[in-house]
């Protein structure tokens, strides 16, 4: 409670507001990432009290998760890494004239998950930290296998195309310096590729530029977005809230635990939560075509993951992400050392930070909800202005990360790839999923073999690893078996040529509803 008293001082309230607003803005703009912003503001924090500085930084951190969804939903441009998944259904909703509810549920879902994540941080931190430590390479390998098995769930009509796209993403992820040998892989001697392909260039190229190119081809001249006219259409209705509630709940739990694992992060959390939401949904076929639960799940997860990432930082002194690493650096500057004794030794720092996060979450939802109609009105911009605008934002965003013209070339190449993939009906989401999870999978597997001296049974003898692997196998094989069983039932019920045809019209109908020229 003394934490709240400190957090409620005028100075601290100001810095919460400042951090949250700055975070929202950097979340909205692609490129300038959360770690970079926190790092830029680090010198400013030297003149502040330790708790106040951390309060500001935390505000930026979770503010960016709120803002990140905005351009994902409106323009198919992920504002920051963890919002990539939000773009999948969010942008489809925007095209259907439902940008308002999508933005609204992103804010509401973020608020609920963020708050429950904080409750988790307040009461469960030491226990969760103990669990996070149990997670070694075999557990990560199994967890990543679980994530990768979800590629099929992100598939469009063809599972084979999804697998090919995923393989492409996996191969792209292998470019760069190999941590284990120190040698470069597939860089063609180009130093710009030594650290691998820039994730933001890949996502924005595949999603935003690819989309613009497809739409430019459509010479019909009609307005592409359905713009809502009534104010009540701008906010999620009861049905939306009901449809999203399960996804928000699940996203909160998944996000918190994945966020607490050092090295996993909110991007992985949002992917896992999205695919789990699809798996658990009664309408999985709507995912990828404008499902509101498909927006709620990743948004809840990435905000809850933010709270989760403070668990190892504050209780073990282990930063789980670049942003928390900078916060750790800031604490060092003050002579504070987070670790197992931090809560008991520095309650005057820890509790105000946590208390301020509750306030910050409230500030963010109050800040973001009134902005929904303002943001949604962006879609009123005629597309011949909107599309150049998207290209401009994409280029500036990608350039601002490394100030590298090479990244803009990559952006153009991935834009072209995104275009070709849409034209040939290859889904882009599995490619991004494999790009994110692939390296974690590869590295964890190699580490597991180092630990086990080459013995593969390590994946089944360690209980958590075995559980995740079992679920992964079930997820991978389950849909195939279900499909076969359905086909067998169908073929016994009807004429031999009907089964395949039976599935296609359903998808085609949905495409007609979404007015989508090319399906994901």
């Amino acid at each position: 409670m003394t934490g709240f008293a400190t957090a409620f001082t005028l100075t601290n309230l100001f810095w919460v507001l400042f951090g949250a607003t700055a975070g929202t803005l950097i979340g909205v703009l692609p490129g300038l990432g959360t770690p970079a912003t926190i790092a830029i503001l680090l010198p400013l924090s030297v003149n502040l009290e330790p708790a106040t500085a951390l309060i500001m930084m935390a505000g930026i951190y979770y503010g960016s998760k709120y803002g990140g969804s905005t351009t994902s939903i409106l323009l198919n441009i992920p504002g920051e890494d963890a919002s990539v998944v939000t773009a999948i259904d969010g942008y489809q909703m925007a095209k259907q004239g439902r940008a308002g509810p999508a933005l609204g549920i992103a804010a509401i879902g973020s608020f609920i998950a963020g708050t429950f994540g904080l409750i988790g941080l307040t009461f469960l931190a030491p226990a969760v930290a103990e669990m996070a430590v149990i997670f070694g390479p075999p557990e990560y390998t199994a967890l990543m296998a679980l994530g990768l098995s979800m590629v099929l769930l992100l598939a469009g009509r063809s599972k084979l195309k999804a697998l090919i796209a995923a393989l492409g993403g996996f191969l792209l992820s292998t470019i760069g310096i190999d941590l284990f040998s120190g040698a470069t892989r597939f860089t063609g001697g180009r130093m710009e590729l030594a650290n691998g392909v820039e994730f933001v260039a890949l996502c924005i190229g595949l999603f935003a530029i690819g989309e613009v190119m497809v739409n430019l081809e459509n010479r019909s001249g009609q307005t592409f977005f359905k713009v809502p006219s009534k104010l009540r259409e701008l906010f999620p209705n009861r049905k939306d809230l009901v449809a999203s509630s399960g996804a928000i709940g699940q996203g909160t739990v998944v996000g918190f635990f994945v966020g607490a694992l050092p090295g996993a992060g909110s991007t992985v959390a949002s992917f896992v939560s999205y695919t789990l939401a699809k798996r658990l949904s009664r309408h999985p076929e709507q995912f990828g075509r404008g499902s509101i639960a498909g927006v709620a799940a990743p948004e809840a997860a990435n905000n809850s993951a933010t709270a989760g990432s403070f668990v190892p930082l504050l209780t073990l002194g282990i930063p789980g992400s670049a942003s928390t690493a900078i916060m750790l650096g800031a604490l060092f500057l003050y002579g504070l050392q987070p670790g197992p004794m931090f809560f008991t030794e520095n309650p005057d720092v820890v509790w105000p930070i946590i208390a301020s996060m509750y306030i910050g979450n409230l500030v963010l939802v109050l800040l973001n909800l009134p902005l929904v109609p303002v943001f949604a009105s962006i879609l009123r911009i005629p597309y011949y202005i909107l599309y150049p605008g998207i290209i401009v934002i994409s280029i500036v965003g990608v350039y601002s990360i490394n100030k590298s013209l090479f990244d803009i070339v990559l952006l153009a190449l991935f834009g072209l790839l995104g275009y070709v993939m849409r034209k040939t009906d290859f889904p882009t989401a599995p490619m991004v999923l494999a790009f994110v999870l692939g390296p974690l999978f590869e590295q964890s597997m190699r580490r597991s073999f180092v630990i086990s001296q080459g013995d593969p049974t390590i994946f089944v003898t360690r209980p958590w690893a075995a559980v995740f692997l079992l679920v992964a196998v079930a997820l991978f094989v389950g849909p195939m078996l279900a499909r076969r069983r359905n086909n067998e039932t169908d073929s016994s019920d009807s004429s031999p040529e009907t089964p395949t045809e039976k599935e296609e019209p359903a998808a085609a109908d949905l495409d007609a509803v979404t007015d989508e020229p090319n399906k994901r």
Partner: protein
Amino acid sequence: MSDSRLVRVVVSGILVVLLTAACGLQPDSGSENGKDFEPTKPEFLVHTGPGGGSDLFVRDVIAMMRKEKLIETNWPVRNEKAGEGAGAMSYLMGKKGDTDTISAMTTTWITTPLTIEGASVTTKDLTAVAGLINEPEIMAVPADSPYDSLSDFIEDAKKKPGKLVQTGGSTTEVGALNGAALQAETDTKWKFLSFEEVGQRVTALLNGDADMMFGAATDFASQVKAGKLKVIGTISPTPSPLYPDAPTTEDEGYETELVAQVRGIMAPPGMPKEAVTYYQELFTKLLETKAWKDYAKKNGLVTKLLTGKKWEKYLAEQNALVKETLKTADLGKG
């Protein structure tokens, strides 16, 4: 889409590229006439992303220099993270004769040109401004580990060849190289478990996936304080200010010459003498401040100021040593 719209799209794109490029071409302002030299548009380069070791170090240095009134403005930090230092080194090469850009360097700048394909710039090609610190590496093990010294670990490694696990960063980082050098000297073999993040390495130590780790004193400080890890040695000829009682490799009788974890300042080739002198004086003054001394003590750093020929000589020696150690570990280019 009509052709005119296509033109609009293309023109907008070109405008953006030009605008962003123009941002880097603003004319200098506020040039000094009264003093010998002062940077007009200073830029502090680092080879890691925001939150990386060098990035945090440089931001701390700038904050200390401002606090001590050695500089007036907040110098911007530029992150050139491509290729483990190779990108930053190439960037400096491209700034030939520039007086406003300086960069923080670490031992990575010596290792990278020897290990990464396409990394051709070496420290010899650049202007060596000053060496600032050595960071003694600490050897830590879980608190319940049977090892109480480096010798205990090596004795056990002899009994279980190839079984024990050291954790650390990439296989060419200082800890890995020194591990390889010690294995060669003692005719032992153990495994190396690479993790990108320090947090993951410490976790591996805590959950028993790894038996020991060489790292910076601050990597373990909180865990040591909480009694979860213990420090059993210093993998350096100089003791750690944070753990002065931990015996060095020399104390324990090992003769291997170890690669040092150094931090220093480099500048573009051909930087005019007056600019080099300005930066050398600036860092010399910084290293004398109380703020620096406190910082070094808190972070377990050993201040080791080297300028001019001494710094160049030290870099050349370290370069030869890294080359030799890479050969021992069967790593490196070609």
